[in-house]
């Protein structure tokens, strides 16, 4: 990187510091404050951190965020690979169209999508009506809507494009001759995938995983409006503590604990993926 290029990165770096690190510093400070009569009083109190440490609810919700993020990442990766690999085989014009189609659901607002899911999955919705119509079920399948299943389904659907795009970009860089050589030497398609394609696309998988994990672990609206009584999230609790409870120190401590946990899990995920043999080869080559 030349001296000139480094300078070009400075405004971005400054924006990251101002937009991310500075608010984090404020959160750290608030977490040691006290609240008296709806006033934040500067102090060096461990009240919020103490409460957080012994709150099983808070840690349960942090764990739930991690689980939700990991599960969505795994589901989107499993579903995303076939789609991404299919994209690489399309003609150039087809690829453009396919990417537009892939991203189409994201052009609608999240609230619109949420209410559309209710219409599709509800007791009197499209799926239940169809299944009843063909005689497969007598009573509506209630678990389709307002359940952990719904949260997993919708988070997977919402985040799939991010995973597909990341894997696709990586898959486009794989030398086709390596796959052909593997097949010529007797590898079954599944072996060629696991021993050639998968290792060489792990940088894309890592990028997709980090994106999907961050987006889904911090998701609040979808669980809240589609998850029914199982829709509570750590983010909603942070929101509740900042707003209704006006307990900014505890909200700050919880937000920081959530952030640190998600950061650690994301780092571990990235570390594991990039440690794979193929990934090291690709990253090393770059």
């Amino acid at each position: 990187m030349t001296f000139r290029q480094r300078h070009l990165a400075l405004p971005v770096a400054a924006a990251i510091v101002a937009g991310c690190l500075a608010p984090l510093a404020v959160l750290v400070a608030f977490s040691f404050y006290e609240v008296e009569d709806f006033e934040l009083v500067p102090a060096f109190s461990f009240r919020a951190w103490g409460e957080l440490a012994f709150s099983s609810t808070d840690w349960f919700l942090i764990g739930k965020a991690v689980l939700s993020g990991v599960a969505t990442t795994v589901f989107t990766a499993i579903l995303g690979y076939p789609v991404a690999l299919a994209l690489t085989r399309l003609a150039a014009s087809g690829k453009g169209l396919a990417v537009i189609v892939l991203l189409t659901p994201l052009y609608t607002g999240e609230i619109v999508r949420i209410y559309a899911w209710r219409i599709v999955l509800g007791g009197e919705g499209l799926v239940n009506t169809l299944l009843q119509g063909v005689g497969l079920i007598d009573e509506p399948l209630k678990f389709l809507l307002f359940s952990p299943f719904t949260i997993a389904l919708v988070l997977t659907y919402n985040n799939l494009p991010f995973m597909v795009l990341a894997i696709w970009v990586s898959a486009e860089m794989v030398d086709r001759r390596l796959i052909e050589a593997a097949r010529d030497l007797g590898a079954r398609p599944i072996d060629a995938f696991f021993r050639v394609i998968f290792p060489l696309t792990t940088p894309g998988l890592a990028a997709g995983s980090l994106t999907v994990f961050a987006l889904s672990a911090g998701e609040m609206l979808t669980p809240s409006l589609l998850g029914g009584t199982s829709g509570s999230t750590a983010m909603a609790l942070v929101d509740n503590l900042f707003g209704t409870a006006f307990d900014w120190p505890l909200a700050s401590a919880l937000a920081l604990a959530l952030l640190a946990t998600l950061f650690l899990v994301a780092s571990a995920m990235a570390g594991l993926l990039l440690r794979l043999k193929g990934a090291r080869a690709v990253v090393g080559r770059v």
Partner: protein
Amino acid sequence: MQRFTLNRRQMLGGLAAGAGLSLLGPMGRASAAVSEIVWATWDSNGHPEYVAPFEKATGTKVKLSFLSSEDAQFAALKTGSASDWDIVNPSLNGAWRYIKAKVLKPLDLSKVPNLAHMYDVFKTTDKVKGEDGATYAIPYLWGLNPIVYRSDIHTEEPTYSTLFDPKFKGQLAMRDYALESIAVAALHLGIPRERAFLLTSDELAEVKKALIAQKPLLRTYWQTIGDLTNLFATGEVTAAFSWRVPYDALKDKMKVAMAKPKAGIMGWCDCFGIPANLPDEKMDIAYKFADYLLGADYASTIAEIGNYATTSSIIRDKLTPEKQEAIFVDDLSVMQNFMWPVAPENYSEWLKVWNEVKAA
């Protein structure tokens, strides 16, 4: 490049004009009537047609700024991010925290003549008064929070215990709101309404058990009233602790009704308040607006269109019996049965219980 130059010129011109106007601004305010006031309120309280008579009479435009939640309103006032609001909308039950946080101005009630028509239950409430004895908010709009239910499915009028009845598993909904949901559970457990918002720690523990046992019976917790209306409309829910909105929206499309449980009817009431930092030159128009909210024009329009009653009796006797019933002023004894949801001293304990219930 040509396009950019033109835009930049336009922008600079606009900035210059803006700077000029801002210099003229103080003079304009000093010499003429206030041209606009900003009213932060709920979208159901502030349709443009509700304020049109005021705008016509005073020549002051009322700009509506709709609230997303009361917490957001309080936070905006507290953090100073709502500097353009001229009139705000604290709830009667939440007024105390605005007063305690010193974000409202004390009011001179002699400047609101229509207070004379206010129902006694609102006129005599202490919830809008500070420890200094001054009044900081004026109740202007009220209503009841009933149980809305599908009358074709619930043949008997529901009580709060219906919301805990396994017979209706998967058809019920509660609001995602600690204050009301915990009180509903307390009433279901037989705790008298006078104490429903003053629960001891032991009672809170019992309520928590009841709410956790209720979870499998619920279809969901509703977040907004539009959300609940949608749940009724799509057949997901047949009974819920509610606002009246789903009833009004759906009564012509399906068999819905409102139940007012004898255990206690939870009321809501919105108040007029003036932010502590409102400039003096806007005080007169703010008081005129308070008087308008308690006057006949606002009361008639909001009763007709929104099915809400103001805290003033000014038009009650001119309404048809049907309209009186619709806005709950046909039988004024209902006011003796009100329960005003008031956040208790140990509200943080309530919030903790509610979060534990939801995470259970």
